[in-house]
């Protein structure tokens, strides 16, 4: 029972960061109908940024979110304006390939700059934990979960309450109708991609103290982000948050009850089952 509880809790805590990655991807998909295969690589850039801020300036990884988020937001807006904007009306396949190419460029540039060695960002609290009711809980994971929850809450408020947020949601619902209502659709696309990149970068910063940092780490998380968004329903922010937690829990359960080598297989099998039997996801509308 303790083992069960412990893996459940650590699954939920990791799932919080996954949720952040998924929300970023789903936002971009919702507004632009583009599946961003460079999402994990953007997150990887965020990880390296955090690593540099920590090892060169000594900024705490959790505090560095305040720098990482705006920088990654700008990177996202830049990528959207210069590259993604040009393929908005292209074939979906070409959009996917463009983002795959972008991802390759990012990961290989990082490899040139930092070599492909694994980097470890070890803070004083990286491996510290506290215990609640007999199960020990990782301290950095708890902090990152709390930050994630705060950001998700803030984002939800932004999307529901503010004018810009409502304009973003309108664009996601119907691009043409939104344009007819006088919404600057291009600007919303820029903001959405910026937010997506910012969230991915933040997730990278939050996961950096507990994960290896290397140039190819992105593709693992790109795939996870897809699983999460498909689980929750493409374009649904709440769905992505729930999807993130589900993926986190099934990974940690899979690692404990099957074996750590097979935990990703568990996730992919769930993914395929959802695609086949409930392709709209848990909270999404069917777009098949």
């Amino acid at each position: 029972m303790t083992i069960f509880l412990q893996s459940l809790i650590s699954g939920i805590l990791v799932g919080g960061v996954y949720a952040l990655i998924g929300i970023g991807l789903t936002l971009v998909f919702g507004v632009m109908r583009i599946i961003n295969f460079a999402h994990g690589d953007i997150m990887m850039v965020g990880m390296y940024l955090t690593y540099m801020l920590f090892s060169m300036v000594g900024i705490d990884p959790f505090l560095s979110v305040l720098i990482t988020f705006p920088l990654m937001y700008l990177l996202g807006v830049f990528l959207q304006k210069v590259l993604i904007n040009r393929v908005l009306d292209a074939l979906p396949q070409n959009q996917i390939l463009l983002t795959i190419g972008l991802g390759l460029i990012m990961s290989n540039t990082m490899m040139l700059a930092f070599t492909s060695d694994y980097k470890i960002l070890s803070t004083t609290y990286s491996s510290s934990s506290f215990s609640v009711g007999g199960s020990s809980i990782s301290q950095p994971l708890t902090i990152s979960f709390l930050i994630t929850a705060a950001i998700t809450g803030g984002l939800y408020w932004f999307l529901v309450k503010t004018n810009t947020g409502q304009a973003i949601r309108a664009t996601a619902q119907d691009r043409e109708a939104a344009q007819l209502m006088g919404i600057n659709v291009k600007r919303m696309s820029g903001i959405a991609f910026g937010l997506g990149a910012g969230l991915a970068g933040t997730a990278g910063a939050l996961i950096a103290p507990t994960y290896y940092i290397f140039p190819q780490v992105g593709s693992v998380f790109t795939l996870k982000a897809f699983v999460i968004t498909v689980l929750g329903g493409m374009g649904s922010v709440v769905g992505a948050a729930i999807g993130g937690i589900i993926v986190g829990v099934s990974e940690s359960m899979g690692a404990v009850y099957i074996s750590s080598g097979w935990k990703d297989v568990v996730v992919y099998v769930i993914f395929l089952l959802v695609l086949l039997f409930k392709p709209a996801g848990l909270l999404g509308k069917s777009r098949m």
Partner: protein
Amino acid sequence: MASATTSRFSRSALIKLAVGLVLVGGLFAVPRYVSSPYALHIMILIFLSTIMGESWNILGGYTGQYSVGHAAYFGVGAYTTVMLMQFRQVPPWIGVWAGIAAVLVVALIIGSICFRLRGPYFVLASIAVAEIMRLSATNLDKFTKGAEGILATEIPVFIIGEHVVTDFLTKVPFYYIGLSLALLTIAVTWAVQHSKLGYYFQAIREDQDAAHSLGINIPLYKNIGLAISATLTALAGSFYAIYVGFVDPSTVLSLDLSVQIVLVCIIGGIGTIYGPVVGALALVPLSEALRSNAIAEGLFKSGIVDPASATGTFLKENLAHAHVLIYGILVVLVILFMPEGLLGFLRKLGARLKQGRA
């Protein structure tokens, strides 16, 4: 008048045929005159890329199903052939048939799952299935030796009757096998494009619902496209495994490989017979030049960059790692500026030059 056009048509076809025959004949003669193993190695890699690109083209280019999981077929073909050779002493020219059989089973399973999905969902499902294959090969280490991989130590001598055909000790037999397989895949693509099957495939690509309403059995033809594509990819995998003599999950079953297969076709020109050939001709020498540091050395020799300077040492140490970077930059450029690939771009350029002359 009619006879004049037919004779002109047949004349241009004859010229094309003659040029093709001369080219193929020349390619078969290469090992007689070129003895450098490195040059042969590059040629073999070009053949391999051509086979991979052409076989993906049948499913992705003609049928419009963008699989980003072709490493699954490549890897299963490679693994079956090598495992049979190492563990059961089955010669590769027999093992490859087992590889194809295994791949067809895998393709049937993957097809029955993934072909229910469309567009981006199909892409994602194809990736997930290939990743499951990779993780399985890594984790079933009693069966596949896991992440350690399998080293093919000894290829048996190929004998027909009493006559020793080849002992596989040089690169020459691999050159001929690669060339023949590349020609085979080009021939299969040509046959597909000029048959009813090809029209069905293209109808599915252009508008699946319209094709369905015309009575085309969509799942059947998608699976036929996949079967042809997977069989040829398995051949490429087996050939690669025997040539390199080593398989492990992170090379023959990786997502990077799947992406690379797609890129050869996209960069060359999707849905055309010679696009993947152009893609392979452009990508292989470029990435090999980077990998072997030929570009850095060229820069030093020509005096553009001083090898002792900071830029020089940086280039010497890092440019070799950048060969995948080239794939990334090329695919972004191709998607943005040449959506029909290098082949389409060259054709347009040729047409414009002709117009300028006339």
